[in-house]
């Protein structure tokens, strides 16, 4: 299994602790992601999945431990420098800017390295966005906003994507479209951490699943073994 191959991990998170003010939300998170993998963080609300993504991106106010990305420890770096290493986030609340139109939202994140997608290709992937280029960001439907939030980080050249619940609150047909997009991205060599509540969706796109509970990673399940571990997983997620 790829998870044994520890030395080649693109991202290695070790003993990660994190705080919001006085509130201690991450209690020693350990996991790794290999290049080209799609890995999910599964867990209940408040387990620490989003906080883990924010910590990797340098957006959690206080953090300790180590986050080695491509040989660099980013634990103490500011988020704008972390972004420059080739990591990009699609936040849970989508973060579409209301005062910017679709084009401006799409063009906002600066290109940080070569190999970012061309705008035409992005509009091929998300044809609905093209029709709405001039609309204000917040006039879009929830699905369109989600696509825009994913689309705009594809332009930057970042090859490591943090996607926080991209399917939340969306219609099944849109969830399918996002699933196909993640599949395409994987084929193109992107590495992705996906935070999900919907594990049926997670199972359709991911290589491995980490289970997060009370600010720790408590288990890892390869996607191939998912069926055999269903009972355990139901227990973890309380579904």
């Amino acid at each position, binding site marked *: 299994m790829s998870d044994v191959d520890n030395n080649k991990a693109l991202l290695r998170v070790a003993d990660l602790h994190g705080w919001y003010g006085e509130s201690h939300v991450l209690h020693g998170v350990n996991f790794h992601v290999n290049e080209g993998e799609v890995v999910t963080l599964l867990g209940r609300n408040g387990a620490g999945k989003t906080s883990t993504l924010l910590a990797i991106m340098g957006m959690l106010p206080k953090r300790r431990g180590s986050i080695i990305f491509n040989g660099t420890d980013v634990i103490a770096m*500011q*988020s*704008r420098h972390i972004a420059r290493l080739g990591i*990009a986030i699609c936040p849970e609340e989508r973060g579409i800017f209301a005062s*910017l139109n679709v084009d401006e939202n799409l063009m906002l994140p600066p290109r940080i390295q070569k190999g970012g997608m061309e705008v035409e290709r992005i509009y091929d992937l998300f044809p609905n966005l093209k029709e709405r280029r001039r609309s204000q960001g917040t006039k879009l439907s929830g699905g369109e906003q989600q696509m825009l939030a994913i689309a705009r980080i594809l332009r930057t050249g970042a090859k490591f994507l943090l996607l926080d619940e991209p399917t939340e609150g969306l219609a099944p047909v849109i969830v399918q479209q996002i699933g196909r997009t993640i599949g395409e991205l994987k084929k193109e060599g992107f590495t992705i951490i996906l935070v999900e509540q919907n594990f049926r969706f997670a199972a359709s796109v991911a290589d491995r699943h980490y289970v997060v509970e009370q600010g720790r990673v408590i288990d890892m399940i390869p996607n191939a073994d998912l069926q055999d571990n269903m009972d355990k997983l139901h227990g973890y997620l309380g579904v």
Partner: protein
Amino acid sequence: MGQLLLGLINGAFYAILSLGLAVIFGLLNIINFAHGALYMAGAFVAWMLLNYVGIGYWPALILSPLIVGAFGILLERTMMSRLYKLDHLYGLLLTFGLALIIQGLFRNYYGISGLPYQIPSQLSGGQNLGFMFLPNYRGWVVVASVVVCFGTWFMIEKTRLGAYLRAATENPALVGAFGVNVPLLITLTYGFGVGLAGFAGVLAAPIYSVNPNMGADLIIVVFAVVVIGGMGSILGAIVTGYMLGIVEGLTRVFYPEGSAVVIFVIMAIVLLIKPEGLFGKEAR
């Protein structure tokens, strides 16, 4: 008609100053009480350039805002940047204190009687428009103000740099997470905002005498303009600035006693009916 023009000229200053305040408030969340003092400093720098270095009006129109802007950047880097995580009130107290210090310094060295500044020779004289006499310089002030305000609006609403600014106003953490240097953007924005105040100061120097209280007299009205237009709204600041200048001028014709308070009456009414201001967005 003359009063209308006078109102328009006041409006020109209201617009530039409230625009700077709106830009600064939008991104920094600081109510820049030092704005009036920096406007005054802009006028004084122009006066100093002329009297100490022999640099005239036209170069001063560029140089003085740059000097005031650089001074603003210094203030932002050394002091204000420490306050962003705290309540608005601290920024207000700091900038209010700075305003008093700057005014006090100029009062100490130059007194309060006011220093004369000549209208540049190219703009002396005036035009007889038939129904009124328009001094050339005053016409120039209105034109310059419209150009600067429109230019700023265009830059913020229609360019890529402006898109960064608008996005950072909404969600600075996320813009930073895309790799943009938000602290630098904030510093430059403050420098630009107070540079606008310096520019207004130079424009004002030949009309009003250059004196340490010129900013304090104006800034209260400008704050009312910003509140009426809607905190942080760029277009609101510009349009409301001109509009209230004209309203004030008209009031002086029809009911002179009311001209000093009319803007504050309008502010009270707007706050009662539409608390977010005429062009403001509803608080989210």
